[in-house]
């Protein structure tokens, strides 16, 4: 599914990713853990095409297709979804309007017909109920005045509505209390399937108690410096990132 090789990227002329290689096969959930400043968010932005993040070497493919050559919206239509660490507020655009516009734009890009209004509303009601989101909240401007936890839940709601194939969750657990964390994790786990893959970026091990990864990678100094099974996350929680930060 996702294959990243020798990726180098810089922000404002400063090298952040320095030869990052990573393979996430379909059906698997991989976690990326690392100290602050290791390049975790940079990786998520490079994969989704945010401007200001310049790739200087290496590459990334999704199912063999060059991901980095595509515009951000084209990557989304291919099924790449980023759950933002800090979701943006969109004043004046109701959440439902925003999501329906996004869904139809993706479908159009894939050559599919637009979803009908009744089908869309039915889907939204079902997914909102699953994520315990008050349907009236979806009529309000997206994320405007929402709490940190509500914004994160809204990210997972969008994810459920757009049904992406490759999911990147950037610090999705931050700002969530334990009940909200469980709801969000249930939402993410519901999307696990043999056709999908996920990359979970997190500083703390806590989220991985709820979303069990197949592989755990340590990102330090702009590279993957260690990889292992789920036990690696527990070891990091116990021993910290020091030895990896030094190794980087």
């Amino acid at each position, binding site marked *: 599914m996702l294959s990243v090789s020798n990726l180098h990227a810089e922000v404002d002329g400063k090298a952040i990713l320095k030869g990052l290689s990573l393979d996430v096969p379909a059906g698997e959930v991989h976690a990326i853990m690392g100290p602050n400043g290791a390049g975790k968010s940079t990786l998520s932005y490079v994969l*989704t*095409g*945010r*401007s200001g993040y310049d790739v200087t070497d290496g590459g990334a493919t999704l199912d063999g297709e060059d991901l980095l050559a595509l*515009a*951000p*919206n084209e*990557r*989304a*239509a291919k099924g790449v*979804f*980023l759950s*933002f660490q800090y*979701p*943006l*507020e*969109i*004043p*004046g*655009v109701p959440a439902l309007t*925003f*999501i329906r*516009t*996004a*869904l139809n*734009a*993706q479908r159009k*890009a894939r050559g599919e017909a637009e979803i009908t209004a009744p089908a869309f509303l039915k889907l939204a009601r079902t997914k909102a109920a699953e994520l315990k989101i008050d349907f009236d909240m979806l009529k309000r*401007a997206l994320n405007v005045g929402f709490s940190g936890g509500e914004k994160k839940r809204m990210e997972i709601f*969008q994810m459920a509505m*757009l049904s992406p194939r490759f999911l990147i969750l950037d610090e999705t657990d931050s700002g969530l209390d334990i009940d909200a964390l469980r709801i969000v994790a249930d939402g993410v786990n519901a999307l696990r399937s043999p056709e999908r893959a996920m990359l979970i970026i997190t500083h703390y091990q806590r989220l991985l108690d709820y979303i069990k990864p197949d592989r755990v990678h340590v990102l330090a100094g702009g590279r993957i410096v260690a990889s292992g099974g789920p036990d690696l996350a527990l070891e990091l929680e116990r021993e910290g990132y020091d030895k990896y930060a030094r190794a980087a």
Partner: protein
Amino acid sequence: MSVAAAIKSRDAATLPGKRDEDWRWTDLRGLIRAVPEPSAPVTGDLGAGPFDALADEVIVVGNGVGAAHIDVLPGQTLAVALRIVSRGDGAHAARVSVSVEAGGSLILFESYEGEGAYLSQTGLIFNVGGGATVERIVLAADSADGVTVSQAEIDLAPNAAYAQTTLTSGARRQRLQTTVNHPGGHAALRLDGVYLLADKRHADLTTVVTHGGVDGVTTQLTKGVVRDQARGVFQGKIIVAEGADQTDARMGHHALVLSDRAEVDAKPELEIYADDVACAHGNTVGALDGDALFYARQRGIPELEARAMLTEAFIGQVVDRMEHEGARHVIRAWATERLRG
């Protein structure tokens, strides 16, 4: 010197210009070397106006001809479409008086419809009685070569409610000015505006509100989008006279500048001579939020559509404050055409 008098006397030297503090960003004197010949009467079929379907009555003022009086009797409710039509390359001025008596209710749809390189001035006087309500919606669709000045003076009685939304796509040079005498006494005033400017168009929204008595409310929200080499001007002044305590006045002006050569000049002013008041103003001028744009694109929305969606939403916050639902539909369609066309 007034614009109307300059047109009448055909003396271009008496037009207001950059030496006049209130006109320094809308210089007519420097633009117009000679006042054009008086306009000929408008002939032929004008077609439908933008609000005809929403009005009980349609009044047309063509090239300054057809002095208009609108009278709303006590307890009467009326919806009037006032079409200020300019055709050709001449100069003309018109006067309109509006009287809404105590307890009456008026919805005024005022449209400026221009074709040609005209010089047009319209002076409007509103008298709004106690407990009367007015919603005035001004849609200025001038030509790119036209020069338009609209000057409205509004006198409110205590307990009157007056709401205005002025929407414009600009002209070669255009000034849409509103002056309000606010008596306090629980009278409520809303003065909103939208300017959507492209090419080399210019629009100037100027408002002066004088609070003369206790317990008055004013709320103002103006938003603008300028692109290409367009220029938007916002001058908003609120004066709270001595003794006009418990005045609550809020003014906001926010503009998006979508090209390097576009320009917005803003001058929000509060002059407060009373002690116990709540007054505030906010003013921002900037580009579209790049983070929000990326967020929308990450969800699959192509860049042009994302820009249009965010810009429409920016303007929509003013349109949503309009009370007349039918007018909101007309205005949303107008804005969509301006922003996506």
